[in-house]
């Protein structure tokens, strides 16, 4: 078992630094972003009317598996001593997709626990990728995690005498590598791409790895940078991957959240998020997921009364949410 673990570990080490100019890679994991191979930063020119407040989107859809979660999945899985066990993780989709892709590349078995309410597209993707099992959990499934059945289910798999030796979980809610991945890559990328001119970082609250890791790095470079967190205005929402932190009992707040990094938290409704995501697609040609709409809505509101350069984290693309967008667009048609 130790031999296999060692073999897995060795196979996850890179032989040499990849060449990001020619973009020829020895395996897909070499496409995980870094300051030498950043995801794009794209300025918004039409949706934002305030020329004194420039907004750049950090397009995390350009990660190899399609979302910001590729960064943390890579760091967490690389460090995990899997052995003969199966990796299991609660996810609203993106972490599960990233973990499954990486696990496929490294020959590891993965199971993913997802909330029932996530888009069907994400569940289909997990099955398409060959996740050994996709557990669907109702939010109220577990009294230990009253609004997060998927987290409760994985917790039970890891702790139950019958299953605990068969499973191991990266546990993105408590794994400091979730923060480190963004401290080592997302933060330095943004600093380098903006040539140190960034004034505001806008990011969503979920596991809180992105905002804490990137925010901490940026504040270390310039303490004047303001870090703004965005959360759903209601605990029940259609913004998969986001979590309403305000009002949560302490035991349900992600352990990796360092609130000292966050200067302000802004609440966004589903309607505001979806409306902004649709406007972004139609005015800038950028098809992003609804959480991008939520975070961008907060930045656009800031634009009316602030000056400077803002970076908005855009976690993923629109294609995994077409059924959710269909519902929104049908409502939009009904209103006209």
């Amino acid at each position, binding site marked *: 078992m130790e031999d296999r673990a060692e073999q897995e570990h060795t196979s996850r080490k890179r032989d040499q630094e990849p060449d990001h100019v020619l973009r020829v890679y020895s395996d897909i994991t070499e496409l995980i972003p870094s300051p030498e191979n950043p995801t794009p930063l794209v300025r918004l020119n039409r949706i934002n009317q305030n020329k004194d407040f420039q907004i750049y989107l950090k397009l995390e859809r350009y990660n190899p598996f399609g979302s910001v979660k590729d960064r943390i999945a890579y760091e967490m899985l690389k460090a995990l001593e899997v052995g003969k066990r199966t990796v299991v993780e609660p996810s609203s989709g993106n972490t599960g997709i990233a973990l499954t892709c990486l696990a496929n590349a490294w020959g590891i078995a993965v199971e993913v626990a997802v909330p029932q309410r996530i888009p069907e597209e994400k569940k289909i993707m997990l099955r398409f990728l060959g996740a050994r099992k996709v557990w669907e*959990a109702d939010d109220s*499934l*577990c*009294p*230990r995690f009253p609004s997060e*059945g998927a987290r*409760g*289910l994985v*917790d*039970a*798999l890891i*702790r*139950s*005498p*019958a*299953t605990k030796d068969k499973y191991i979980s990266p546990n993105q809610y408590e794994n400091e590598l979730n923060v480190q991945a963004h401290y080592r890559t997302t933060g330095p990328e943004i600093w380098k791409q903006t040539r140190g001119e960034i004034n505001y970082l806008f990011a969503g609250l979920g596991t809180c790895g992105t905002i804490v890791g990137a925010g901490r790095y940026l504040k270390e470079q310039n303490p004047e940078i303001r870090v703004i967190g965005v959360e759903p205005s209601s605990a029940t929402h259609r913004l998969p991957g986001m979590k309403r932190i305000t009002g949560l009992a302490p035991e349900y707040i992600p352990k990796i959240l360092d609130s000292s990094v966050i200067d302000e938290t802004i609440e966004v409704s589903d309607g505001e998020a979806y409306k902004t995501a649709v406007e972004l697609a139609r005015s800038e040609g950028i098809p992003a997921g609804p959480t991008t709409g939520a975070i961008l809505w907060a930045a656009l509101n800031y634009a009316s009364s602030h000056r400077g350069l803002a970076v908005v984290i855009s976690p993923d693309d629109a294609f995994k949410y077409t059924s959710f967008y269909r519902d929104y667009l049908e409502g939009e048609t009904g209103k006209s």
Partner: protein
Amino acid sequence: MTANRECDLSDLLCPLSKMRATEIIDNLPAGETVRIILGDMDSVKSVVQELKARGMKPDFKQESENRFVLTVSKQ
């Protein structure tokens, strides 16, 4: 109630115990009785809640510190 069968779920924590108990109840033929053995109070609470939601009234007995028995009949 005299049970026709017994299912030991004492090595599963909630919500795995609840999910497994729900499967057992769903597959229980009408007129039969099952003894479901659970190993912790969180499991007992959530399984009882699930049974009540289905209009079932289980008999409850604590046999030891970590052994709880629910006896359930399906009409």
